[in-house]
């Protein structure tokens, strides 16, 4: 014990850090901030440390070469003892880190912590969010599989739309004319050197500011932030009623960080590592590329933007969003901190959460994508064929053979790209059905060139049978007049 003490004194005589460390750990914080709401920042830092360690461990084996990366991941998964576990820790650590950073940001926003004098802390935090997303995207590329390959294609396609310099950006992003060896090497450099370097620098400044400016006090309704008086008020809060950070507040940080580490380990053991998926061979086109979880919302959004507005929205909205986040502490740097007095802030969070949640959910189910094998794997339900005429059954055959099932569902099975057709006869008359099939319209391609008149005839006859029993199918009354038949007779011919 005395030896340790002696060594400590020897070191401190030279480093002279003891006093400032003691000052840092014992600095007074407002009493109420020793709360479970204030643990997310430290948890994010802990997960980052885990990512650093597991990242270095992975780099011992991983080969950042387009020709070898996928194989080296297989070796990690299957041949190196517990290689799969380190990969799983790094993958799940990434998901946890993004989630915790987002929760931290929401908490800070709802508690008004970005207000005077902590504007710069918030701004650095916004950059840290972007850097963390950058780590997630570049990391996803290093898992060099089919999703990574086509994900790079999506990234290149988006970048290429920047006016004038788009093509230049694409070549710099890919390191050459195609996605290949140079692409993986530069994403490796980004993921392992550049972005983590930025992350360490920004985290250091972020933490320094937290220490210099003090932890945000617990917001109270009616306690207004004013530039003239805030510093004095905060000084009183910390020095009259405050408690030392260690150990009064820090024990919750430590416990939560440990809980998060164990949760990551549990996920890693239970769910295992992410991929890699199929080999990064672009000649294998039987693939449906999908990004990682935290980019699914963007993937979903890209299928809903109208083609004409897509490029401007893709290029302008992110810039506006980032500028908005950076400008927030200057626009709302004073005033109420408590969320019950800030309805716009609460509604904004709800709106963003519901939007991202909905888009992520859609991204998981991709209803806009045709089910590529529905035409051969999903038969038409038997009850849709019972008691039908030969022509109508022939139409059902056309429906399958022409791959209509890939986009249209029957009895809940098949594609969701187009509307379900179980009740289509109620919505569209015979003429409208013919027109829609031949000319297309809305999101439907025109099939006129690919169907003979006989096939169209049969297909429409089948579609006309698709209505609930006892419900009148749509029909054009003027045609009855033109053909000299009564509407009732026309209906009686339908089942």
């Amino acid at each position, binding site marked *: 014990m005395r030896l340790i003490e002696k060594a400590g004194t020897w070191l401190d005589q030279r480093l002279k850090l003891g006093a400032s460390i003691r000052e840092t750990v014992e600095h007074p914080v407002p009493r109420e901030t020793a709360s479970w709401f204030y643990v997310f920042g430290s948890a994010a830092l802990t997960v980052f440390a885990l990512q650093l360690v597991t990242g270095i461990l992975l780099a011992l084996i991983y080969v950042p*070469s*387009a*020709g*070898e990366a996928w194989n080296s991941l297989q070796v990690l998964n299957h041949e190196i003892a517990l290689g799969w576990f380190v990969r799983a820790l790094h993958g799940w650590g990434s998901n946890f880190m993004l989630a915790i950073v987002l929760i931290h940001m929401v908490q800070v926003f709802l508690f008004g912590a970005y207000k005077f004098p902590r504007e710069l802390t918030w701004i650095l935090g916004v950059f840290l969010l972007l850097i963390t997303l950058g780590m997630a995207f570049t990391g996803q590329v290093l898992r060099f599989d089919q999703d990574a*390959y*086509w994900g790079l*294609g*999506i990234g*290149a*396609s*988006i*970048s*290429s*739309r*920047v006016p004038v310099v*788009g*093509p*230049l950006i*694409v*070549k*710099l992003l*890919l*390191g*050459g*004319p*195609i996605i*290949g*060896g*140079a692409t993986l090497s530069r994403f490796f450099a980004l993921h392992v050197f550049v972005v983590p370097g930025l992350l360490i620098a920004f985290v250091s400044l972020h933490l320094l500011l937290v220490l210099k400016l003090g932890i945000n006090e617990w917001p109270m309704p009616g306690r207004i932030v004013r530039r003239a008086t805030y510093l004095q008020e905060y000084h009183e809060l910390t020095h009259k009623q405050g408690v030392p950070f260690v150990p009064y507040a820090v024990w919750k940080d430590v416990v939560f960080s440990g809980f998060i580490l164990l949760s990551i380990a549990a996920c890693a053991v239970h769910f295992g590592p992410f991929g890699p998926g199929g080999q*990064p*061979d*672009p*000649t294998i*086109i*039987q*693939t449906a*590329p999908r990004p990682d979880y935290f980019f699914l919302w963007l*993937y979903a959004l*890209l*299928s809903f933007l109208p*083609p004409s507005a*897509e490029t401007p929205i893709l290029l302008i909205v992110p810039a506006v969003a980032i500028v908005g986040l950076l400008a927030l502490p200057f626009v709302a740097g004073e005033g109420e901190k408590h969320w019950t007095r800030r309805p716009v802030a609460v509604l904004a969070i709800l709106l963003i959460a519901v939007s991202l949640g909905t888009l992520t959910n859609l991204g998981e189910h991709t209803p*806009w*994508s*045709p089910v*590529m094998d529905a*035409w051969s794997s999903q038969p038409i339900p038997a009850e849709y064929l019972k008691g039908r005429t030969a022509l109508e059954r022939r139409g059902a055959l056309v429906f399958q*053979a*022409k*791959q*209509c099932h*890939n986009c249209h569902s029957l009895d809940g099975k098949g594609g969701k790209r187009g509307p379900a057709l179980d009740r289509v006869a109620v919505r569209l008359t015979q003429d409208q059905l013919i027109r829609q099939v031949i000319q*297309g319209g*809305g*999101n439907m*391609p*025109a*099939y006129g*060139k*690919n169907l003979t008149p006989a096939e169209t005839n049969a297909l429409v006859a089948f579609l006309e049978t698709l209505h609930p029993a006892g419900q009148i199918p749509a029909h054009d009354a003027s045609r009855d007049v033109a053909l000299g038949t009564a509407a009732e007779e026309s209906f009686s011919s339908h089942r």
Partner: protein
Amino acid sequence: MASQNELVNIKSRAESTSQPTETGMSRRTMLFKLGLLFNGFAAAILGVPILRYLLSPAIREKKMGYDSWVSLGGLEKFPAGETRLATYRNPVVTPWDGQTADIACWVRNVDGQSFQIFAINCAHLGCPVRWFPKSGLFLCPCHGGAYYEDGSRASGPPERGLFQYSHKIQDGKLFIMTGEMPTPGSPNAANGTAGRPACA
């Protein structure tokens, strides 16, 4: 104790030498600023080649850029009236590109005389489109973009038709001009008339 005295000495010496002159700038300060300027000059000298190195993927000395004629094989591989998948090795490769330099494209033999060669990349965001001969459509698995057999846009998010490579037939073989992945912003590598609506 000796070391502390030394520290004090250094401090006092530093104070005595940084006395401002009448112009407000000591000789040492001016030398320091000149030194900074000198380092700025050195940084510029180093910076130019570094920038050139960084920009090397985008600046290509060859006049044609990355493109060159690549054979897709004999014409007998592409029967008249059909659309077939063809693959080729990209003309610009590094030894460690592995499978990524194997690129696929769709070859449509329109009538035994004329050909259309479509890029595999969807004109929306570059995902691989698949050909469905029965419905005569190219479908994209990512966001549901659809194209007719002649590559023109049918539906979905793409703004234009499929990218097309220019091609030629030589000694019974089909050649295409390629080398660069086509993207919506730079379709020059594989550009064609497919963007125009079919009915125009």
